[in-house]
C-alpha cells in the first residue's frame, strides 16, 4: 500500500462523505470543521506515527490529502 492509499483509507474513517482524493480546498470550502480537524490530526498520528506541532496547524497543510501527506513526509525526514 502506498502512503497515499494508507492516508485515504484513514481519512475515510473521519468522514466518508468527503472526497479527500479530489478536494483541494477542504478548508476554504468549509468541509472541515474543528471536530473533523482534530480527528484528522489524530488520524495522521495513528497512521504515520507523527505528532503534528501547533505551528504546523495551518490551512495550507490541510487543504488536500496531498498537502497532508507532504506535511507527514516533512516530519518523517
Amino acid at each position: 500500500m502506498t502512503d497515499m492509499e494508507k492516508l485515504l483509507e484513514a481519512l475515510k474513517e473521519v468522514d466518508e462523505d468527503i472526497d479527500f482524493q479530489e478536494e483541494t480546498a477542504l478548508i476554504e470550502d468549509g468541509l472541515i470543521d474543528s471536530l473533523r480537524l482534530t480527528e484528522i490530526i489524530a488520524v495522521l498520528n495513528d497512521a504515520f506515527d507523527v505528532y503534528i506541532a501547533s505551528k504546523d496547524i495551518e490551512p495550507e497543510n490541510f487543504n488536500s490529502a496531498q498537502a497532508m501527506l507532504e506535511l507527514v513526509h516533512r516530519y518523517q525526514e
Partner: protein
Amino acid sequence: MIRNILDWLEAAAECTPNRTAYDSPEGKRTWQEVLNQAKRIGTWIARKVSAQSPVLILMDKSPDCITAMFGSVYAGCFYTPLDGTMPEARMKLVVNVLCPGLVVCQEKYRQVAGEVAGGAGLCVLEEMDGEIDEEILIKRRRQHIDNDLLYVLFTSGSTGIPKGVSITHRSVIDFIEWACCALRLPDGVRFASQAPFYFDNSVLDIYCAMRMKGSLFLVSKSDFLFPRRLALTLKEQHIDTIFWVPSALTALANAEVLGKGDLPELKRVFFCGEVMPCRTLNLWKKVLPDADYVNMYGPTEITDVCTWYRVDREFSDTDALPIGSPCKNTRIYLLEGELCVSGTCLSPGYYNDPEKTEAAFIQNPMRKQIKEKIYKTGDLAEYNSCGELMFLGRKDSQIKRNGYRIELGEIECLLNAVEKVVLGCCWYEKEQIVAAYTGEASEKEVKAALKRALPRYMLPDRFLHRESMPRTGSGKIDRLALKREVENEYSVF
C-alpha cells in the same frame, strides 16, 4: 425609551453614516448602507407577507444575512436564522414548528430552501428589486409594539423536535441597554464575532455594536481552526472586544501563539455559553493582564444573559469561576437548588408549543396573588461564601459541547428511530457522546442515519453495539449499570 431595535439602527445611520457597521473578509457595509439595504429588503418582505409573520433566513454568516434580519423587522416581522448546512430533515422539523410566511435565502441555498419551504413563499436575495417604499414601512412601524417578537431561535429539544425560543423587542432592548452600560462599552466599539447567528450569543454582538455605533467583524469560521490565523485576524482588524464561548478562548490560549503584550488593542474579553475553566482565564491574563474579563451565564429563554461576574480577584487553575449576580432588572430564585429567572428578559414561550412552554415557564410560587412567570433553567446553582452564584451542573441530560446546547434525549429519539435498532441509549463521558444500541443495525448504518438527521456537533463520537441492555426494576434502561458494563469492557485499552 425606545420600542424597536430599529431606533438604534436609525440613530447609528444618522450620527455615523460612514462608519463600518458589519464587515467580513468578503466586504463591509457602513451604517448608512445597512439602513438602506434593510429598508429595501423590508419593503420587499412587507409586500409579500403581513406584519408579525415568521421569516426564515437561510444564508451564510455575512453582513447581508444581518441586513436580511433587519429587513424582516422593517416589515414588522420576526426572523429565524438557520444554518444552511443543517441536515434537510432537521430543517423540515424547524419549518413545521415555525410555519414561516417567507423563506429568504441566498442563491446558493435556492434548492434546499425550495425543498423545505413548504407552503411558504421563497425569496432569493440576489433577485430582490431595489425599491424603498417608505409609506409601507412607516405603516408597519406604527402598528408595532415592543411586545412583538424580534426573533425565534431553535435549540435542541429532548423529545426529538427542536424548540423555538421566541424573544421580543422589549427583552432585547432591556438586555442590550444593560450590557452596553455594565460592560462599559465605548462609542465605536469593535467586536470580533465567533457565535453563529442561530446561537443567541450573537445577539449581544450584533446589537451592542449597533447601540454603540461601533462595528462587528465576522471572523471566518476556518480561522477558529487555525489559532495563528485567528490571532493575526484579531490584530489586523484592530479588535477591541470579544464575546466568545469558552471553548474558542481555550483553543486559542492553548495553541501557544500568543505572548505577553500581543493584541494590545484587545481590551475586553467576555464569555458565555458554557463553563469557563480558570486555567483558560489564567492563560489569557498572562497575555492581557489589564483586559476586562467578564463571565456571563444564561440560556436562550432569558435573552442570552441573566447573571454576570466581572473577574475581580485571582483564581487558581482548579477553582470554579462564579457566574456572579443577576443582571439589572432580573431576579434569580434558587428553587430546590434549581436556578429560576424572572424579569423582562423572559421569553414569552416556545413558539407553537404550549405544552413545553407550560412545563418550563411556571407561575412564580412566591407571587401567587398575580400571574407572574418564572423560567426554570434546569441548571443547578448555589451561593458561595461571597454571596456569588456558582453553577453546579444540570438537573437533566442536557449537555454543552463547544457552547452548543444538546439534549441527549433528542439524539436518543433519533437513534431509536433508526431502522434495525431495537433500543438505544446515549450518555456523555470524557467529553464524548456515547451511543449504545441493540438490534441488527451495523455501526456504519446507525452513523449514516444519524448524520442525515443531526447537525455535526450532535453526532455521537462512539457507537457501541450491545447484545442486550441492563434494566432497572421498573423496566427502564439501567443507565448506571450500562455505563459500568461498558467501562469494564473497554478499560483494558
